[in-house]
């Protein structure tokens, strides 16, 4: 399991490529001052060695196909293989974005159809598929809010309200778009404090960014009142779609009062997360905002067929080159077509059932408390604070110990409003036996914490590497082979 760096496997003279010969063997002069003179220290390996290297690395990585992966707020559901098969069709891979519209009717149809699904699912009237990820979508959304208010002659609306339980991207995106961020606290129950909201809104309010259900997995049951407060103050309501998996096919953000929605195709719509990306973060808006969407949109008319529509009068411009992560969109559309109305609803119901199953089964186990209301949607946040106080075992220790059971840990220390948070989102694609085993493992860890806490504190024990020192990583940054070589020569690292 100790796979060397690819640079360490390099041997001079080895070749891992074949290239077609150039059309003509003319000599092309590169200006002297631009010709590369610094050594190009890339690894030299043959193809079999490269394949072995990355095969081994892959085996040192835990994915959705490896076992339960209940990383809260990330919706690590199974990624159907049919999505992948269709996404690798030559009609996806080998088309250029600037091809004449008549030669990419298939691609445009896919984007158009996907938009129709997303509109019905969210209750929005128009979508851009351009954003590359959730945060890119949020930036799109808040940029639209900014453009809208400016357009309405309200440049003073420079405050964006966010829940204190919000994903970090919410305030970060708002700030990037030039907003001042105001945090709205949560109540003991785990939902938004309406009084605080009332007193926060003003003529400076641009909007409120909210997830529903929120990051505690709790449905904001006063959502209609929240919408009323914000709208009355002249603000817009932005839906962070990260948690849509709880309500997909049952409840539409548009019906909750939201004006703008971003979705995460890589969460709710089963496209794979790729170790961090690519994702896709489409943004939908109500009719009155559609003129602000990024360009191009995808249009359809009988004569022209599908086309790229650059005629968006007040467009905020572009948040990414070209049209977005097309190969991800293909996967999402395949998923939607296979699932259909009934199964989408079933999926969110089972996701909610699974989360409540874990909630009820784990509740009452020594060391874990359950802040907020008991009824959850797609995820639940337990706190290991009692355990920490009584045994010194932290949420991080619990997470690490879970790895020893061959299971992925929950999200830890988020949301920030819960101390020692363990945020568990099982999703609908895990089996009851996996849920039972997960609860059993968490119970066993509780027993260990109270009988033999050291075993938990020093976890993991059965993984490829032992607990990784992230403090050292930040204190002495080694960020590339180049830096490593230098530090090593100077004797400053010995790993």
């Amino acid at each position, binding site marked *: 399991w100790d796979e060397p*760096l690819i640079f360490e496997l390099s041997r001079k003279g080895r*070749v*891992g*490529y074949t290239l077609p*010969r150039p*059309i*003509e063997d003319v000599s092309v002069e590169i200006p002297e001052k*631009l*010709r590369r003179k610094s050594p*190009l*220290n*890339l690894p*030299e*390996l043959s193809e079999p060695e490269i394949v072995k290297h990355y095969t081994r690395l892959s085996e040192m990585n*835990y994915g*959705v196909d490896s076992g339960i992966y209940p990383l809260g707020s990330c919706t690590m559901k199974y990624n159907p293989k049919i999505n992948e098969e269709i996404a690798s069709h*030559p*009609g996806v891979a080998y*088309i*250029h974005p*600037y*091809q004449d519209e008549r*030669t*990419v009717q298939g691609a445009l149809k896919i984007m158009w159809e996907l938009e129709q699904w997303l509109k*019905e699912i969210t209750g929005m009237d128009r979508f851009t598929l351009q954003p590359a990820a959730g945060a890119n979508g949020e930036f799109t959304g808040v940029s639209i809010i900014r453009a809208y208010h400016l357009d309405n002659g309200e440049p003073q609306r420079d405050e964006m309200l966010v829940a204190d339980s919000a994903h*970090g991207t919410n*305030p970060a995106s708002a*700030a*990037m778009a*030039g907003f001042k961020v105001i945090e709205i606290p949560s109540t003991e129950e785990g939902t938004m404090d309406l009084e605080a909201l009332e007193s926060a809104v003003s003529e400076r309010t641009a909007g409120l960014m909210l997830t529903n259900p929120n990051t505690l997995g709790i449905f904001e049951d006063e959502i209609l009142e929240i919408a009323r407060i914000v709208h009355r103050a002249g603000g817009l309501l932005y839906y962070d779609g990260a948690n849509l998996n709880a309500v997909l096919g*049952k*409840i539409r953000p548009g019906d909750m009062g939201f004006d703008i929605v971003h979705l*995460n195709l890589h969460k709710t719509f089963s496209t*794979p997360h*790729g170790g961090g990306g690519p994702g896709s973060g489409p943004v939908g808006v109500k009719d009155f905002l559609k003129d602000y969407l990024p360009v191009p949109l995808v249009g359809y008319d009988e004569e022209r067929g599908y086309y790229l529509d650059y005629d968006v009068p007040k467009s905020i411009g572009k*948040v*990414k*080159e*070209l049209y977005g992560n*097309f190969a991800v969109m293909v996967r999402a559309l395949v998923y939607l*077509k296979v699932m*259909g*109305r009934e*199964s989408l609803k*079933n999926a969110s*119901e089972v996701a909610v*059932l699974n989360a409540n*199953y874990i909630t009820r089964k784990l509740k009452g186990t020594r060391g874990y408390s359950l802040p907020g*209301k008991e009824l959850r949607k797609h995820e639940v946040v337990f706190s290991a604070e009692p355990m920490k106080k009584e045994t010194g075992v932290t949420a991080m220790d619990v997470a690490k110990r879970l790895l020893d059971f061959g299971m992925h840990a929950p999200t830890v220390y988020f949301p920030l409003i819960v101390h020692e948070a363990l945020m568990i989102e099982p999703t609908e694609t895990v089996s*009851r036996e996996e849920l039972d085993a997960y609860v059993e493992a968490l119970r066993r860890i509780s027993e260990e914490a109270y009988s033999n806490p050291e075993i938990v504190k020093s976890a*993991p024990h059965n993984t490829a590497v*032992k*607990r*990784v020192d992230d403090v050292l990583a930040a204190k002495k*940054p*080694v960020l*590339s*082979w*180049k*830096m490593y070589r230098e530090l090593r020569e100077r004797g400053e690292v010995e790993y």
Partner: protein
Amino acid sequence: MGRHYLPNLAHRDEMLKEIGFNSIDELFSDVPAGMVKEFNLPEGKSEYEVFLELSEILSKNRTVLEMPSFLGAGTYFHYVPAHVKYLIERSEFLTAYTPYQPEISQGMLQALFEYQSIMAELYGLPVVNSSMYDWGTAIAEAALMTVRLHRGKRKRFLVPKALSPEKRAVIATYTRGAGLEIVEVPWDEEGNLDLEKLKEAVGEAAGVYVEMANFFGLVEENVREIGEIAHDAGAYFVVGADPTMLGLFEAPGELGADIAVGEAAYLGNPMNFGGPRAGIFAVRNDKKLIRQMPGRIIGMTRDAEGRRAFVMTLQTREQHIRRAKATSNICSNEALVAVASAIHLASLGPRGLAELGEAILKNTAYLRKRLSEVAEIPFEGLYFKDVPARFEKPYSEVHEALLERGIHGGYYVGKHFPELGETALFAATETTRKEWVDALIEALREVA
């Protein structure tokens, strides 16, 4: 039809009962009355039916394998070696998320560390993040970063006029909130960045951006000089470079760049109608710069037993910790695209990357030579991939005629650069075949 993804659908009632609920509705009892609805969506189909339907839809796309293509302008048809595709499709890579638990994610962490390392060698800058969304957003983030580095006291950012309209638009949207002033520096007669105009504009600039080959494919001759002008004015120097150039051309870091950006998806990834991509983002090993860098970074460290291990690091810059004060809002990035590019680069090695660059230069030279027989090439100088060709007829007519002959013609630039008239960019890469170019010229002779 999606019940085959839902193991517990068969046990719904049993499980509900076990945890004390009577129905699914009870699980949604906190939802305001009337909010739960039946959706107006089609019923699901079998996998086979969807496969047939999508195969048919996709067969409506006329791919570059079916029709020779000369489209470039920021997206290029490179060949992806089969082993790269196979490796990134392994589900341990494909289906994992951000490696929050390093002990069971060493594979992805190491692969990303290797990506950072390979790009560091290529760009001559030792600190590389583990990807932005694309080249365009990487420039935009670089612009914002140079302003932060000046603590907001300078808000001007210079970019070449000969810049992709896509990138230009992204930069505009990204920097609006922070109130940046984006200034375009024109090209001179040879097509290089106009150094005199640059000097006029550079005062009080937070950063200056230039590309090693501009939007028209023209290799920029004065990269080092531009950097010196920027630095003399106290501005940060940001260099954009196509990674496929860098086997032959000097590393941006060696040419004076403080920050370098580029597009990783040109290697190891198919065009995919333009996405996903992955933006390369590299900086000097300078704490001040590193602290202001956007995006995730993987670092090497050790585990509890002192063995080498990898982990996400310097996270206090990031949104999930710093929230509104983060260096960027980016969370999900383009990790898998980045890993694919790294596998491709590791396969090429130094010799292969140089050979790839040579093949591109030579094929571009051939395309240029042949195009000059039928059209005017607006600038002298060395071209990499794109070649502008100016026609007498409206280019739309030319393009139409090419389409009729089964050729994807060039990208019309007249719309964004009216000063160039009826000019289109035609591009070559290592995938371009002589017979394609010859057929193109043949066709252009007939129609242009």
